[in-house]
């Protein structure tokens, strides 16, 4: 209009702000796209990976421990006794507890992986707000996702079964000790039937 205002206030700053927000939104979408592989299935696979890693070690240790237990029972002539029932049941119970622990640890590993992914994602979101460069953020997200998707390193399991044969070994040792004492008694103590104070050692 003739004689109108000098202009200005055409929303130039608002338009620039809209463009800035659009770039940030594009960056967020790029991050979410790169991280979409980290779904429930991914973490279930990660959980199963730990189970697959740990269970064979448990099976191996269990087989060896069972063998040692059977040998110990056999050495003490307790293979056909209630002691065998108790000891093998204890071993099986321990085996099951360790299996449960492995599945529980696997859940922990999956949660840790999930937490790591969320932390990485959060950092990228923060960087995205300051960078305002969707293509650069997409590259960063892609690199980070590749690193996070790499197979994890698990530490080997330590000794899972302890003292399975301890009591039996003690019983065996006790028996041996009693046998030795009996031998000594026979050697040095008087034979009540002979009435004498000593016996001839042949």
């Amino acid at each position, binding site marked *: 209009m003739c004689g109108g205002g000098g202009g200005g206030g055409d929303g130039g700053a608002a338009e620039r702000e809209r463009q800035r927000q659009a770039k940030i939104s594009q960056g967020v979408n790029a991050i979410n796209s790169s991280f979409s592989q980290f779904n429930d299935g991914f973490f279930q696979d990660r959980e199963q990976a730990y189970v697959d890693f740990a269970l064979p070690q448990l099976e191996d240790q269990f087989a060896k421990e069972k063998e040692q237990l059977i040998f110990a029972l056999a050495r003490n002539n307790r293979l*056909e006794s209630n002691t065998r029932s108790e000891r093998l049941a204890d071993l099986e119970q321990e*085996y099951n507890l360790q299996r449960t622990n492995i599945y529980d640890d696997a859940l922990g590993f999956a949660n840790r992986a999930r937490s790591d992914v969320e932390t990485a994602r959060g950092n990228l979101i923060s960087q995205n707000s300051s960078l305002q460069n969707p293509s650069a953020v997409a590259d960063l997200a892609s690199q980070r996702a590749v690193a996070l998707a790499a197979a994890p390193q698990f530490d080997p399991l330590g000794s899972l079964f302890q003292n399975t044969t301890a009591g039996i070994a003690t019983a065996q040792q006790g028996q041996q000790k009693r046998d030795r004492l009996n031998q000594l008694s026979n050697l040095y103590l008087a034979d009540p039937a002979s009435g004498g104070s000593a016996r001839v050692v042949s």
Partner: protein
Amino acid sequence: MCDPVTASLIIGAATTAGGTIMQMNAQEDARDRANSLRAAADESNNAIIDSTQALQQDAAAAFGEGTFQEDVQGQEDAIRDRLLDNLVSGFAGVDFAETPEIVRRSDAREQEGAQEFAAGFADALARLRGFDQNLFNQNLNIGRVGEATQTNSGFIQGNANALNSDLQMIDASSPFGDALVAFGGTALSAGAGGLGPENMAGQSSGFNPAKAAPGRKPPIPARFS
């Protein structure tokens, strides 16, 4: 045709009025632009606030007493099933052909006890982990809502800064209107003060409050009225 003084007064009044109208129009335009910018910013901010509130309300709803307990129960059941399904039984293949019956019964009894213990352990662990797992999942969700809230707060702040910048850029002045008002004021003053060289010499041919118009009494000086 009117005399120059009257013409000067008329032109002065007209240009002043025209200039004033132009100034008012310019201010009106500026107000309209400011209102339009504010409305656009409000619309954008309201959409951001609505989406943020929806996210926050969803996250908060997950902590509602009934919902949280249901989610915990769901997690607990899933973990319990997984743990119990993976228990084994039966002495892991140990069998002896010569085992007396009394020992076999002892085996069964001890095995049952071991199974009960392992199942009880798995059940207790599932109850513990069910709560932990649900809390963990909700925390992840809250973290994401926090991220979105932070981003949206940045957007709202950006909108406010942009609005402020745009409002400062609005020019409510009307240079032509200002010029007209100035010209009109001058013309009015000139008309009111008389025109021509005689006025400069003190012989006004225009309106002079100290001089009587023809056929009228001289005006009363202000100090006597």
